[in-house]
């Protein structure tokens, strides 16, 4: 059955948000690991990509995720002042602010993108952040404004 044959309602019923989380190796990825160690469950549609630092996240990666059908993208890094590389998260903060601002300017719902600071000791915070992000995205529904329709079909 192709997309064309599905009714919008059926699609909506089947739909589960796809969420990409970029996590810096030193803090947030560790925070995600700690959430695991403490068996703090969060929705399985959060998929983590490990990057050395939040400043490694190129806006291109985020756009690519949306293009390929992600419904929400979240960038996680060390708390300001705690970056392993001293200043990476400050750069990330500006870059993401500007990117998100542009996406919002183009009419993309601003809740689809987020930056959160999660330390390696904050397993519980990681879970809470992911829970709330997934909730936001679920409420927004599928990302129709920035998706690549061809890639959605399967």
């Amino acid at each position, binding site marked *: 059955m192709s997309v064309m044959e599905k009714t919008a309602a059926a699609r909506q019923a089947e739909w589960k948000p796809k969420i990409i989380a970029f996590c810096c190796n030193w803090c947030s990825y560790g925070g995600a690991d700690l959430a695991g160690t403490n068996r703090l469950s969060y929705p399985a549609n959060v998929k983590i990509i490990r990057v050395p630092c939040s400043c490694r996240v190129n806006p291109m990666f985020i*756009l690519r995720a949306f293009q390929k059908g992600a419904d929400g993208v979240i960038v996680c890094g060390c708390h300001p002042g705690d970056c392993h590389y001293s200043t990476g998260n400050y750069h990330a903060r500006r870059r993401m602010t500007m990117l998100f601002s542009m996406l919002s*300017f183009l*009419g993309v*719902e601003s809740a689809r993108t987020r930056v959160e600071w999660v330390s390696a000791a904050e397993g519980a915070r990681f879970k809470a952040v992911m829970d709330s992000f997934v909730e936001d995205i679920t409420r927004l529904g599928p990302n129709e*404004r920035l998706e690549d*329709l061809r890639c959605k079909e399967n």
Partner: protein
Amino acid sequence: MQRELINRARELLADGTVDRVLGWQAGQFAYDITPAVFTDAGELEAHFVYNEFCADNLSKYLIKESEKEGKVLAFLKPCDTYSFNQLVTEHRIRREHVYVIGVESYGKADVEKLRARGISGITGVETVSGMLKVHTMYGDESVPLNEVMLDRCLTCKSKKHVVYDELIGEDGDVVADSGRFDMVEKLERMTAKERFSFWQGELSRCIRCNACRNVCPACTCENCVFDNPGSGLQNRAARDNFEEKLFHIIRAYHVAGRCTDCGECSRVCPEHIPLHLLNRKFIKDFNELYGPFQAGEVSGQMSPMCAYTETADPEASVVRKGGAE
């Protein structure tokens, strides 16, 4: 003005100060101006023009011209001087190879606005006491310049030359009340859905001709990511409505903090997409979030995209304020 420019260029060529002159010449039609390099007095006399159709920003051409041996004379309008400074900052122009003459400009004419007034067969323009005198095959017409000005000139940010070796004509001032962010503000006040429809309507007209990229004095990459098979972004015509946006988001993002708001992108767009609004959104954000910044104002200044403050920068959630959804 044109005569003055030619005379000075001839002098500088004659006394060996410069080896070449970068200016404008008419194309097939009088309003069809194109940048050109002149090497002797004969060429200057035959082809050099400077009038209200000379809208092209010459700074970008200086990247290649300043790589060559010898010195090139460049005539720069106020808006062009900002681009020039920015390119010097980025080490794209060899400053010592360029002799800059600042030329005054009070706005350039939009030939389409002239046509809309039924003026055709244009053979030339000049300003006579505040009025634009249009020479046509059917006689002269006179119209107020500000009624037929290019849109970008109507919201001019500055009539000041931020860099020059000498000046012909008068230097102006930064325009404090240019109103150049009015349209951005209007969009910001819309709902996300309204903005989406607005941009959908605008960007879907994009034919990916690359004119905006090619004219942009900030888009000077040796190898553009859109042409680079290794970048993961390589594409020509957009395959879907996402890529229409992707191209323009990435282009705006790449020039953020470097765009001087010269307005060339919108001027050359054959589909009349207001691309400058994307750049102005970034400029406005920089000003509001990180303090006033004008790219190209001073050479050597650091882009706000490369800078940060530890405590004063707002968190990214700041974008959720206002008209965001």
